[in-house]
């Protein structure tokens, strides 16, 4: 029967179609690649390093939080409640704190994966490998430091009964579930040792690679400068001074600005003083809600009060503004501090006009788009001044202090020693680095109480809110992890 015959053919055809398609269900993604074989070529490793820098742009890290929250938590910033953002941090509400735990560990895993993969990459010169390794080590060291200063005490001021140690140290990468480790918190000292190790190795690898880089990427000067800062936090003043000297000597990235160029330096796409500066492209604009520009000011351009841009959520406290105007000349007139020019009256577009910080004013040519300095040269003078002062070298400290003072337009300080010298160094550090994410950390590393004007309350160093809470889900997902006291 004809019908039956064609039916058989049809069924046979169907069966054969199914059977012959070994790739019946094969679909390969086009926007991703398999993670196990991803990092086997030089191109892939280079792309993977770049992927770590990408994390640093996060608003949890340098995109906003590590720059703005230290100002809100401490005594430099006052929240205006125009969008409501940063108000909880300004009020030191419980849990209103740093939240870069996740992003930092994600980036650390990426760095670990690159470091694990490097020895197995073929057809890549040792110099190129060293250059990649130096960058990965620098970022890993940097991020462990950022974790430490938010989630743990600095060794010299550790409150023993409250302290739960440092942060978990992970040094190998994870691509599949079997590699996951439920690490507990390492001791504060172990983490600092690890950061020292990473930065030392990074400096060595930058040297052996023979490669230089701009401040947009990790570079040898940046590793030295970061070492200086880490040592200062650790209370290791010898190294703080030594590495500040190294960083200042290098001179390849970061040029100290004069008083004349001081303000215009803050208008350039890349701050000329930057030793390491996070870059943002136009498509990476953080936008009108959480960029630094919108956080700090309603202005879109200096001197233009007719056009409103952002919210201006965090403005300088009266105490900070007063500090810029605290020195008088012989006639009793206030001496003009050039750094005060970076604060001006904002618009009424979001409510009452306030005096606002204009360090981030769309420097990259677009509103809310700013490259963000992580370390700049001025800090090296201040680090060394403090390190020398604290190790009894008052003369050396004064020299460095006066580099900063005279550049600002203040007369050179003379005859200061001991506590008075340190107080003045700390004051200049506050004025120089205000709204750049130093204030809270500087007070915390020195065990200082934070004094705040009414209506908000002051915060004693002994208060548990000096440390950030580890995300609750991390405690739930890892039985070995101890939460900070009070949370």
């Amino acid at each position: 029967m004809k019908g039956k015959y064609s039916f058989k053919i049809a069924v046979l055809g169907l069966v054969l179609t199914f059977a012959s398609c070994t790739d019946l269900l094969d679909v390969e993604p086009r926007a991703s690649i398999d993670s196990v074989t991803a990092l086997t070529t030089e191109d892939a490793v280079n792309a993977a390093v770049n992927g770590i820098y990408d994390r640093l742009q996060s608003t949890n890290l340098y995109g906003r939080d590590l720059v703005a929250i230290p100002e809100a938590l401490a005594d430099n910033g006052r929240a205006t409640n125009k969008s409501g953002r940063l108000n909880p941090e300004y009020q030191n509400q419980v849990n209103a704190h740093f939240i870069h735990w996740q992003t930092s560990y994600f980036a650390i895993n990426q760095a670990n994966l690159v470091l694990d993969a490097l020895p197995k990459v073929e057809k890549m010169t040792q110099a190129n490998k060293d250059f990649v390794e130096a960058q990965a080590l620098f970022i890993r060291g940097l991020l462990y430091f950022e974790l430490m200063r938010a989630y743990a005490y600095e060794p010299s001021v550790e409150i023993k009964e409250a302290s739960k140690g440092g942060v978990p140290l992970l040094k190998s990468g994870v691509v599949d579930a079997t590699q996951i480790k439920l690490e507990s918190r390492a001791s504060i000292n172990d983490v600092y040792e690890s950061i020292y190790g990473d930065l030392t190795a990074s400096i060595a690898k930058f040297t052996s690679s023979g490669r230089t880089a701009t401040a947009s990427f990790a570079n040898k000067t940046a590793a030295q400068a970061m070492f200086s800062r880490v040592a200062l936090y650790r209370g290791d003043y010898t190294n703080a001074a030594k590495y500040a000297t190294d960083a200042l000597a290098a001179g390849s990235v970061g040029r100290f600005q004069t008083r004349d160029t001081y303000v215009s330096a803050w208008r350039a796409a890349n701050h000329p003083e930057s030793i390491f500066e996070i870059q943002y492209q136009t498509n990476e604009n953080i936008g009108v809600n959480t960029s630094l520009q919108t956080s700090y000011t309603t202005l879109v351009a200096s001197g233009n009060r007719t056009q409103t841009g952002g919210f201006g959520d965090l403005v300088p406290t009266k105490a900070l503004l007063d500090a810029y105007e605290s020195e008088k000349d012989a006639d009793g007139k206030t001496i003009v501090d050039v750094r005060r020019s970076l604060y001006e009256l904002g618009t009424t577009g979001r409510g009452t006009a306030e005096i606002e910080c204009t360090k981030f004013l769309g420097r990259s040519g677009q509103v809310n788009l700013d490259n963000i300095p992580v370390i700049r040269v001025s800090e090296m003078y201040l680090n060394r001044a403090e390190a020398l002062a604290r190790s009894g070298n008052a003369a050396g400290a004064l020299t460095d202090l006066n580099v900063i003072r005279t550049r600002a337009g203040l007369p050179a300080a003379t005859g200061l020693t001991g506590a008075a010298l340190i107080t003045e160094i700390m004051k200049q550090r506050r004025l120089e680095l205000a709204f750049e994410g130093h204030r809270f950390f500087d007070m915390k590393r020195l065990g200082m109480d934070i004094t705040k004007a009414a209506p908000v309350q002051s915060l004693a160093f002994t208060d548990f809110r000096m440390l950030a809470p580890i995300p609750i889900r991390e405690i739930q997902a890892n039985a070995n992890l101890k939460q900070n006291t009070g949370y």
Partner: protein
Amino acid sequence: MMMRKNLLSLLFAVIIGMQAFAQDKTVSGKVTSADDGTPLPGVSVSVKGTSRGTTTDASGVYKISVSGNATLIFSFIGFTSQQVGVNNRTIIDLQLASDAQELSEAVVVGYGTQSRRTLTGSQASVKGSEIATMPTNSFDKALQGRAAGVQILGANGTPGGAAQVRVRGVGTIKGGTDPLYVVDGVQINSNSGSAAFTSSNPLNYLNPNDIESIEVLKDAASAAIYGAAAANGVVLITTKKGKSGATKVSFDYFTGMVEPTQYLDVLNTQEWIAVRNEALINQSPTTEPGAAMRTTLGAIRLDPALTTDQIAALPTYDWQKESYVSGRTNNYSISLNGGSEKSTFYLSGSYNGTDANVRNVDYKGGNINAKISNKVTSRLTVDNSINLSSFIQRGQFGGPGGGSFLGSPTFSAPLILPHNPFYKDDGTYYGTPADGGIAGILNQNVLMVSDLNKIESRVNQAIASTVLTYKIMKGLSFRPSASIDYRFIKGFNFQDPRTADAFNVRGRIQNQNTENINFILNAVVNYDKQISSVHNISALAGAEYRKDQSENVQQSAEGIPTPQFTVAGAAANPITTFASWSAFKKAGVFGRVSYDYAGKYLLGLTARYDGSSRFGANNLWGFFPGISAGWDLSQEAFLKNNAYVNQLKLRVSYGSLGADQIGNFDSRGLYGGGFNYGGVSGIAPTQLANPNLRWEQNITTNFAIDYGLFNNRVQGSLEYFIRTSKDLILDRPVTWLSGYSTISENVGELQNKGLEFDIKTVNIDKSANNRGFKWTTSFNFTQIDNKVTKLYDTLTTLPGRAVDGWIKIGYPVNSIYTAEYAGVNPATGRAMWYDNNGNIIYRLAGNPDSYSKIIGGQIPKYYGGLTNTFSFKGFDLEVFLNYEFGRTVFNNQSAFMAENGGRLFNTLRSIYENRWTTPGQITTVPRPFNGNAETLGSGITAGSRFYEDASFIRVKTLTFGYNFSRDLLKKVKIDRARLYVQGYNLYTWSKWTGFDSEFINLGSGNNGAIPQPRTITFGLQLGL
């Protein structure tokens, strides 16, 4: 066929003619349909108590010899049987009424059809004619309240907007909940319809007038044939086909008004100034009152020195009236069908233009549908169909789901401070960004934003299929088919440089194009056999392959020369380009065997073996069987011919279904791109691999009774089901130390148990002559208990969930976990909450578990519909109510509107009038307080206060129609003509304090979501 029937009639006639000698009387007459008066050929006419009988001929005429006192029984499939006493008459003409539930009709089931009498699975049916006039664009929304076990909510009131359809509850935690849509055998991709800029429904392509019937497969026995895609139910849509005969034309038109259902009662300028002043003074009681008033006025850009009289003279502007507006709807649909014995066709076209109840939001679209069927040989039939459609929607600022966007009229209009005028004296917009905006936190002139921006999405779609049906031998056929579902979605967002969000960048243009290609091949073999006239066997086997691929390209650019330039090419700065690609492949083989013994004892077996590229390498394939059995007591001797019991069928079914609505690459370990820095491309690990990832599985057990009583004047079903969803895929959190957040694993379990009841009654029926009074009622009710039963490890609560997405064992999916609001302290006016020991607290601080509890769920517990239809002399009136109870949702629009001057925007009058003002006052509204949080207190809208009961009963439609008499129409050569007026969403009973509680939370709650509209339409339906 026709010829054989005629032959058969002739034979009968001859036999009857021969027997006529023995009889004393010949009765003749014509049998017609009570529905439309057309003659009914093939009606069986038998003499009660004898074996004698005949059938009507092609023109419905019969002739039979009987004794003068005999009784004739007229019966015909799909119509209610009638018994008529002869009473010595010689001519008996009769109208047969169609059987309300068509117990014997063939219904569409997966990959085939089956007689409703022998169905053993659970399946809800809705006729196309029931929903054809509803002004909803897509048919899914029209199904709301029509079918037991099927819960539907419109995502918002956007015309042509999305809807959420849930069959028998929610059976997943992470996966999708949409049912599988199969239109004339083509599995439609219902996911890719969401255009980025408007709320869009992928089912808009289908003209509701083209729909013949909709079947919702609810249990495993009916749906297992769709295997891994069937866990959320399967909706089978059958569209109209051509019928041989003279060409028939149908024309359907409606036009009407779309309007807001309500405006919120907010404060006038004076009241707002007063309450703001109060809020400031409450915050700092030592402030001198004059200073507080100066602050209040200054902050909203009024002269701080205004006197009381001057304040009293300030005008109030109603921004809602300008933003929520009335619009029009127009719908045209025309169809032609006809053909010869060999070829038939069905051609139709439609156009719909509908405005939203919000300024500058609308829908325009149409489709062309062509179906042609050709009998190539006596064995081979080819069916071709193609449906082309295109629609364009204008959307609202801020996106399809709404959101707290200052420029969005739907969000901002009720909140804008009422002293802000709309226009300046010269007629231009007041408060442009160049002028510094309007006063208050909601500082954008939303009329300007709405008028100047262009937000659109267009969907072009083509669905085509070719089906061959080859009859191999009697009862055996082979049916291969190929289909394609092609969709192109074009989103366009032009932000005018004069509006606030694009002012600083001199205009912004975004384009998003998505192309989706869904290709399906399948082949089915059907076999039907009757053995010794009581054993009926029907079997089916088939195979199917599907590939679905989606590609998306997006760009944005800023800086346009002037607002007339609305293409990205004219912009100075390209900002982003983005592209994505994704695909899945599925393959499966399936089969079904149905057996019945004389229609009494019924058995069904179904199974599918399915594979999908979405799952882990170790678990690509899954097996999904279903078994069902039934016993139709009405076919037993003791009930057969019982006048009171027409059907009494017990059914039971059990089976397993798969759920595959997860990401296409969720099982893979991936390094993703896009982690760029400094203009150089970068990659990063994005996902941990899980090669064991497999289907979520639904085990369903179903018990049911189908009943038809009192000559089928009462009929319906009662069903009880247990749907256990196992192996639910959860993103199990892993420590962030690993570099990842989660891993997808099959670890969860939940259960839906429920009861479904539906009943249709003919209460009064004097319509035997087609013009008398008739009243029918249909009612359906569904009750569902949803409960999470298992999570991983020893967890009782899934970590990392939002307050309104709580997953806790023993509670429904996405329960709400927050602090119970305790009202206001009568002494101080401060807001209070309860902690978990029942103590009053003023601040929600510390561990949320110390004060939070589950206060409600987002899955309704009861829902359904009630329809009453009255007809009399050509007039008909239908009242359709639908209802839903037990859903609690966050009303964030009302939360914003409850701040009573805490920030610079307006407030609901009811909140203002009930605010605490004097010690001892008992109220639930705290005193106004600047910033909304008292010193050491939490914000006044925190906790359970604005989680509101979203239950409603709604007059969904009220339709009053008139059918012109057939006799009259005959004179003008018209088959049928009907005029009607219909009200849609006419009235709602609800405790909800916002615009409307029918919305889906697409991430921003009801903030800025376009509310459901009220629509009044006038319609005309013509048949030529």
